[in-house]
């Protein structure tokens, strides 16, 4: 998939490129609005990530251009200006999602995937892990046809996030940012992730031992799959 990254902070643009390349996206990077405007007019992209705070261009104008020349592209706005006003305006102009800086690269990937699923109507989004069927569309986990009904919303979010980044160790910070990130909270303690994982294991264990949900000592958790 082709991604255009429009970000004037070179340090961030580079990291975005490294990350996206690793996840098999083809990346074009622009550091200013003028060159981005050219690229948008010439190439076709699946994703356009726009930083609103460009020195030479109003990011929202760029969004309009993107919608005109690349109507199929998924536009995600990245900004340090987390104002409500921008948020509404951006989504009004046809942005598909909005990420306030600082954001996690994993979160960006997860949003991009979610929008793709939504946009292309992938009906059956199923994953199989050690006999458990995880349905990302219905947000359910079942074992041999029996639903693990006691799984809470937060617990499912954790499993889904780990699954999306399978075979990769996610730290407690990353996990807690995902499930509590939107909360403005005085403390940023990620200890409660352990409690959540403990609960998930207990609930799944009633059906079969969830060996695929691994604790990586000293680092965090990961979901391990064969393929």
């Amino acid at each position, binding site marked *: 998939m082709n991604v255009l990254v429009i970000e004037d902070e070179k340090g961030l643009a580079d990291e975005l490129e490294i990350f996206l390349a690793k996840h098999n996206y083809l990346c074009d990077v622009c550091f200013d609005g003028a060159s981005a405007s050219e690229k948008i007019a010439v190439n076709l992209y699946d994703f356009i990530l726009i930083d609103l705070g460009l020195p030479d261009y109003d990011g929202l104008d760029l969004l309009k251009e993107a919608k005109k020349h690349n109507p199929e592209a998924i536009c995600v706005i990245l900004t340090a200006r987390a104002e*409500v006003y921008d948020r509404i305006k951006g989504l009004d102009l046809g942005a598909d999602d909005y990420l306030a800086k600082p954001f996690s690269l994993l979160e960006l990937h997860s949003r991009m995937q979610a929008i793709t699923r939504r946009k292309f109507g992938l009906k059956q989004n199923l994953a199989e892990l050690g006999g458990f069927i995880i349905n990302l569309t219905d947000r359910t986990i079942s074992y041999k046809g029996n639903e693990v009904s006691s799984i809470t919303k937060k617990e499912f979010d954790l499993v889904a996030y780990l699954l999306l980044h399978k075979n990769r160790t996610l730290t407690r910070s990353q996990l807690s940012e995902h499930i509590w990130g939107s909360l403005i909270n*005085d403390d940023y303690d990620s200890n409660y992730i352990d*409690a959540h994982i403990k609960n998930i294991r207990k609930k799944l264990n009633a059906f079969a031992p969830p060996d695929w949900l691994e604790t990586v000592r000293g680092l965090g958790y990961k979901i391990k799959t064969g393929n």
Partner: protein
Amino acid sequence: MKLRTKLTLFNTLSKLVIVIIFVLLLPLLIRTLNKIYTDNRLRKDEEKVLQTVRSHGIQSYIQNGESYGSYTPIKDVYVSLDEDTLDEHIDTIKNEPRKVEGDTILYRILSHNFMVAKKNYLLEVGISLDSVNETSRPLQSIAFMILVAMVVLTVLADQIYSTYVLQPLGQIIKTKLIGQKFPNFGSYKKIKTSTSDFEYLDISIHRMIKTIESTFQKEREFISNASHELMTPISILQSKIENMFEQEDVPDEAKTRLLEMQRILNRLKSITKTLLLISQIENEQFLKEDSVSLHELLAEIYDEISIRLQDKNISYSVDVPENLVLVNVNKFLMFNLFFNLINNAAKYNRENGSINIAAALEDNVWVVKVTDTGIGISTEDMPLIFNRFKKLRASLKQDSFGLGLPIVQSIAIFHQIKIDVRSEQGKGTVFKLTLPDFLMKI
């Protein structure tokens, strides 16, 4: 006491004192005046008689050595002329009784002796004191009435003038000081006054408020700009750490350090986000257009927080009418307000403690109470709990940076919710939120 009241009181009292002094002095005054007047009259009468004697001779009064006497029919004035045997010269005015046709009447009498044709004569002119006093009494009461009228008039005039002249002061107090929240970013109208003192006061207040406003504004802008500017570098650092973490050639030992960095970065991020949020609330960048059921809101918060409650086995109960709806609020902010209160209630609670959230009408006003069985807040810490970055002794053990309650306070002020805190150390704390009418709907 108000300045105007004081002035009126002083005015009235001082005038009352003048009236009393005057009333006390009045009889004496009138008497003296009367005396002078009567004596003058006596002198004039005397002069008339002497004039007659000089021009027409003593015979016009005394013939054949008989004494002359004359008085008005009601005996209030009399004149007598008689031969006198005394040698010494008399010229006095005295009060003396005289017997006239059987009546003893007190007269003011002028006695004067003079010599005509080698004979001494004594002239007496008298005015009855009754008739003198008769005029003095009405005079007294007229004087008194005029005085009272004048006093009333001046008091009224003073009152009206002081009201008029103090009006600008009242306006300054009413429109610029009473019930004004500082800093107030409203526009300021100059008070119309011709009194230079008030003008100076008005301008000074104006200037002071301007200074306070601009200081506040600068502080807010600074916090807002600083936190915005921090977002991008934090974002870059975070991405770099995340990418490094994924690199296969990074040894586990280095990964542990990266993890540590990530944790610290998260803390920085959290502080920055919180400061930004507070500055956004204070700059009123949120809309208050949402309606949300308090019951549902609390249920959502429970979903977020249940894992923390489980950790300490804290029981959570909600006594809120299900049909109670918060209107004209910002849902995101209200969620944060209650989340932070309940999170604190959990954080500072004891094992097997409890948290209760209850909404009820108190004196026709909706009140929501968040009650916990936690460690409580000491009296000396109480005034500090809403201060930013103020770490209280009780919270030192906790992983906190003292921004939870400042958020709560900013959100409450933004929604005009009043917060009262009652706490007993070792027993627990009650946060009482008083919600204005326009936020509640049943």
